[in-house]
């Protein structure tokens, strides 16, 4: 136990002495947590539209006004030439072209039916779908309005109508950062844990000090604990800094669920994450190798965690990968506890899985560590 005391003393001294790295692992996550959630917004707004109006009638102008009124659409250009509009489209200045044919108003009134043409830039498929749906809804409204003007006593009044009442729980204003902050915080804490732990241990290998340690009577598990405990403490600290510093003060996110459950899960989760870092270090001879492995793992962890894209939408094989990913569970649990007020009872299953992972990764790492030295 005395040896452990000296090891911990040494580790903390080394960590606090290197102010550059300390700044990187404390300030960078905070800055990123401040900025990223504002940028990671899926809500589709500010769709640029080009209107090609061959009609120049009262209707065509009314329609244009109606499209621009709610604020989703921004008029990029209004003209009479489709090729011009398409040029804007190619330059990515507009996402959507609405072409109103000549004689649109007349045709509609005379023949009871008229056509519009819409071209959508579909490189970003989701944006295209949502944008065109918005536009269709506005055109349908415009249609109903015209109908009402022409037929003062519309028969639609007697048709059965289904009214839909929507209620958004936990986040009634559909505030996007509210959802992103906990997820990004989890990824940042995971990065700090995996990178710091794996690089630090490998550095001792690369510099040669680990050989010195190996000829001393220090027990292997003392050495490993001496490495894991400081990074565990740092992980706890960075998470708290993000949760209470950035999320609470800046984004006004108040954790609604059990903090005990959240920190209990975090404690186990960090052991699992540091186990992965340790494992990476046992498979690497130098820092460059450790970095390569750590980056590869971290990238897959991040993409497959449900941080940006929903896991349920993935094909089955990918869902399996997501289920083997520790980050998935912590993001899920953090969002549940912080946003929905879940408690211990709701996260039991996740806690069980993450505990198993913590045991698994650390056992593997220690087994491999023994074997190589």
């Amino acid at each position, binding site marked *: 136990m*005395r*040896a452990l*005391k*000296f*090891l911990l*003393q*040494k580790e903390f*001294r*080394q960590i606090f*002495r*290197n102010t550059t790295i300390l700044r990187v692992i404390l300030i960078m996550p905070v800055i990123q947590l401040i900025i990223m959630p504002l940028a990671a917004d899926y809500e589709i707004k500010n769709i640029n539209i080009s209107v090609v109006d061959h009609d120049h009638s009262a209707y065509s102008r009314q329609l244009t006004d109606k499209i621009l009124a709610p604020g989703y659409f921004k008029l990029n250009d209004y003209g009479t030439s489709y090729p011009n509009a398409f040029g804007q489209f190619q330059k990515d200045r507009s996402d959507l072209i609405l072409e109103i044919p000549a004689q649109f108003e007349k045709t509609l009134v005379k023949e009871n039916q008229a056509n519009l043409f819409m071209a959508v830039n579909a490189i970003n498929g989701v944006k295209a779908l949502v944008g065109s749906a918005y536009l269709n809804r506005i055109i349908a409204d415009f249609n109903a309005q015209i109908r009402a003007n022409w037929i003062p006593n519309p028969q639609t009044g007697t048709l059965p109508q289904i009214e839909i009442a929507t209620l958004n729980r936990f986040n009634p204003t559909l505030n996007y950062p509210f959802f992103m902050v906990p997820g990004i915080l989890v990824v940042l804490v995971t990065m700090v844990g995996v990178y710091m732990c794996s690089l630090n241990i490998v550095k001792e290998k690369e*510099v*040669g*000090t680990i*050989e*010195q340690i*190996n*000829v*001393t*009577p*220090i027990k292997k598990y003392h050495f490993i604990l001496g490495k894991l405990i400081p990074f565990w403490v740092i992980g706890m600290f960075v998470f708290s800094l993000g949760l209470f510093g950035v999320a609470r003060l800046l984004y006004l996110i108040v954790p609604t669920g059990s903090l005990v459950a959240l920190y209990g899960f975090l404690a186990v989760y960090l052991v699992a994450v540091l186990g992965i870092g340790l494992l990476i270090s046992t498979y690497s001879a130098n820092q460059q190798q450790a970095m390569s492995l750590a980056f590869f793992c971290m990238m897959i962890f991040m993409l497959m965690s449900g941080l940006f894209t929903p896991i349920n939408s993935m094909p089955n094989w990918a869902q399996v990968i997501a289920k083997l990913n520790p980050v998935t569970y912590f993001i899920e649990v953090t969002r549940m506890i912080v946003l929905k007020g879940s408690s211990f009872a709701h996260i039991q299953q996740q806690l069980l899985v993450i505990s198993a992972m913590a045991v698994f990764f650390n056992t593997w790492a220690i087994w491999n560590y023994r074997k190589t*030295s």
Partner: protein
Amino acid sequence: MSNPQAVIWADKLSKHFGEFVAVNQISFSVQKGEIFGFLGANGAGKTTAMRMLCGLLLPTSGSAAIAGYDVYTQTEQIKQNIGYMSQRFSLYEDLTVAENIRFFGGIYGLPDKQLKLKTDELLHTLQLHTEAKTLVSALPLGWKQKLAFSVAILHEPAIVFLDEPTGGVDPITRRQFWDLIYAAAQQGITLFVTTHYMDEAEYCNRICMLVDGEIKALDTPANLKKQHQAQTMDDVFYHLARTAKRTAD
């Protein structure tokens, strides 16, 4: 010539890495307080042999004991009784002189009081009092190595293993380093030194020449020179090493 009573004792010790025989049936013994030189070209198997004796590497066959402890089964006891300083610099560069002393003393289980005493004594001997709070990375190489050696004998081990301890150091500092080694030997510490420098070989009580993993010569420097009718150890070494088939690294 193997004597189980010796401080270091090896009998037909071998290490194979797959097909490759790094160390082939070496036998020797080292007495208490002796300065034992271990010489050989790069790749001759010096470091492998030393790692086996320190308990870092398990031998393939043969037997060996360090301070009476078996290298197969009693590695923990061995570690308690040896000091080690490797060719790659072995102190923490981002800790200060005093912090390094405290750390290595601490993990060998020195009690706090003794730790403080030893630290003062060591700083005094090395005349590093003013540098106690200096980071090791800021010290000149010669001082670093003297410090590393002193740290390696801090816990008063029976044996100290030195793996090319004076690499890259100027001749004056090397001389000072050997003064430290002699002083340690005076205290009854046994020193096991590998080196490239043939002038250093002259300082040893006895020398063991390793060629292609086998012992080609083992005697005092004077006797070796006589046997090979050579003026200097350089000539002896050249004469023996010529027979090597292995290329360095």
